[in-house]
């Protein structure tokens, strides 16, 4: 029964995402064969509006607040004031418009910082809110003392304990207590954003390099700030390395300080984005077939494509857990290397 339900949910997502995609893109033909790249790039990129369906001027989206900071102050307005890029928004002496890269610019050449609640920020806020709800519920269920876990608690508790005992404790060792809240939050923040990103029409939060940049920057800062004598000793005077090799080894170690979090950033971003790109590409096959062979061709390709999408979807659910695990694991390893005593 439960298996059937979850299978149905996956099927629903697959079909719904096909439709929500299909509605928008069927018209995007420029002679010749349909080019899916702009659409895919648009889907995985951030946006000022939460696009639901429709294309161009006929698209339906949820407008999100635009917040622009400049030395002349902060301007706040809704993204639909741009009217799909046709209008300019005028605030006092400042005129804002959208350039052809979907960036907001000030026509007078004023330097602005775009702090808008974009699609990704909104999605992240929803995820965080959900995470609070889940963790709040779980946390409350412990008020019943010494009772076996049940319901949501029974699902979340093993995850929490797995992350703490098998990832954090194993890799950091005795001094893990200080880093446990951060690393647990890494895991669940990445996990819930990965999973939310799989919903049809959802944003691609953990597949955005800005988000993964911040997360890996935190790992970098923690390893650098909490790194002990032993850690720095390994970088500036690698033990067991002959003096002659020092000019090579020390720069490599210093570069290594940065490549580790850099790899974290790229890994999460690339994995999640790649998953989205694969699903979108497989759905695009239908439109490529339509533009190349007509509607009949599209009908022929659609079932195959849908099956593949379903398959990739299942893998993406796995990847959602896997990438959250890997990010937390590697962060723990790096922090562990920084704070462990020499052996």
């Amino acid at each position: 029964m439960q298996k059937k339900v979850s299978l149905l949910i996956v099927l629903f997502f697959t079909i719904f995402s096909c439709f929500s995609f299909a509605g928008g893109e069927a018209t995007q033909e420029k002679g010749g064969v349909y080019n899916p790249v702009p659409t895919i790039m648009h889907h995985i990129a951030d946006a000022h509006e939460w696009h639901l369906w429709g294309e161009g001027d006929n698209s339906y989206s949820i407008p999100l607040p635009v917040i622009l900071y400049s030395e002349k102050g902060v301007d706040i307005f809704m993204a639909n004031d741009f009217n799909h890029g046709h209008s300019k928004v005028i605030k006092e002496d400042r005129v804002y418009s959208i350039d052809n890269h979907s960036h907001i610019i000030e026509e007078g050449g004023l330097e602005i910082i775009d702090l808008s609640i974009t699609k990704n920020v909104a999605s992240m806020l929803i995820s965080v809110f959900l995470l609070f709800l889940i963790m709040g519920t779980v946390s409350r269920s412990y008020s019943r003392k010494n009772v076996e876990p049940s319901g949501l608690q029974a699902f979340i508790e093993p995850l929490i304990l797995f992350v703490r005992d098998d990832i954090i404790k194993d890799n950091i060792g005795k001094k893990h207590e200080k880093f446990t809240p951060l690393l647990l939050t890494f895991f669940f923040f990445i996990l819930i954003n990965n999973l939310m990103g799989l919903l049809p029409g959802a944003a691609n939060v953990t597949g955005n390099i800005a988000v993964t940049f911040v997360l890996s920057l935190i790992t970098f800062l923690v390893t650098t700030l909490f790194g002990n004598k032993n850690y720095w000793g390994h970088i500036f005077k690698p033990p067991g390395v002959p003096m002659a090799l020092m000019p090579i080894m020390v720069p490599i170690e210093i570069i290594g300080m940065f490549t580790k979090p850099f790899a974290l950033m790229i890994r999460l971003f690339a994995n999640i984005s790649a998953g989205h790109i694969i699903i979108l590409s497989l759905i695009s096959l239908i439109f490529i077939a339509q533009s190349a062979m007509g509607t009949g061709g599209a009908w022929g390709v659609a079932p195959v494509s849908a099956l593949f999408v379903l398959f990739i979807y299942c893998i993406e659910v796995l990847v959602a857990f896997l990438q959250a695990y890997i990010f937390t694991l590697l962060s723990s390893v790096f922090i562990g290397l920084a704070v462990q005593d020499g052996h």
Partner: protein
Amino acid sequence: MELVTPAIGLIFWTTVVFSLLVLLLKKFAWKPILSAVDERNQSIKDSLAQAEKARSEMSELTANNEKIIAQAKVDRDLILKEARDMKNEIISEAKDKASNEAEKLVTTAKEQILNEKMKALTELKNHVADLSVEMAEKILRSELSDVAKQKELVTKVLKESKN
């Protein structure tokens, strides 16, 4: 290159949201959850240890009981054995005593019989002697009435006594 250019706004919001998330979850989720779990684990561990202790105490008690029972059995056997020995001793003692007594009785009886016999014999002897003397007197009286016969008798007696 849009894809790999981090947007400043998103960096800002991610930093703010994530930092707040860490602080709030730390206070409202991780600490209470982990401490509750650890507490529960500790109580499970304690309960198990207690149960184990109770079990070992129990087995110790059982072992003690068994020891006591075994000791009791040994004691019982010892007492029984002693009783049996005592019984045998008493019996044999009684037997000895009885046979001694009997022997004594027999001896006394024998002695008495002997005494009586001796007495009777003495009496008889005396009686016989008296009788003989009386007879002798009577015979003598009759014999001595004839002088010839007196002489003959005296010589005969003398002869006999010489022998």
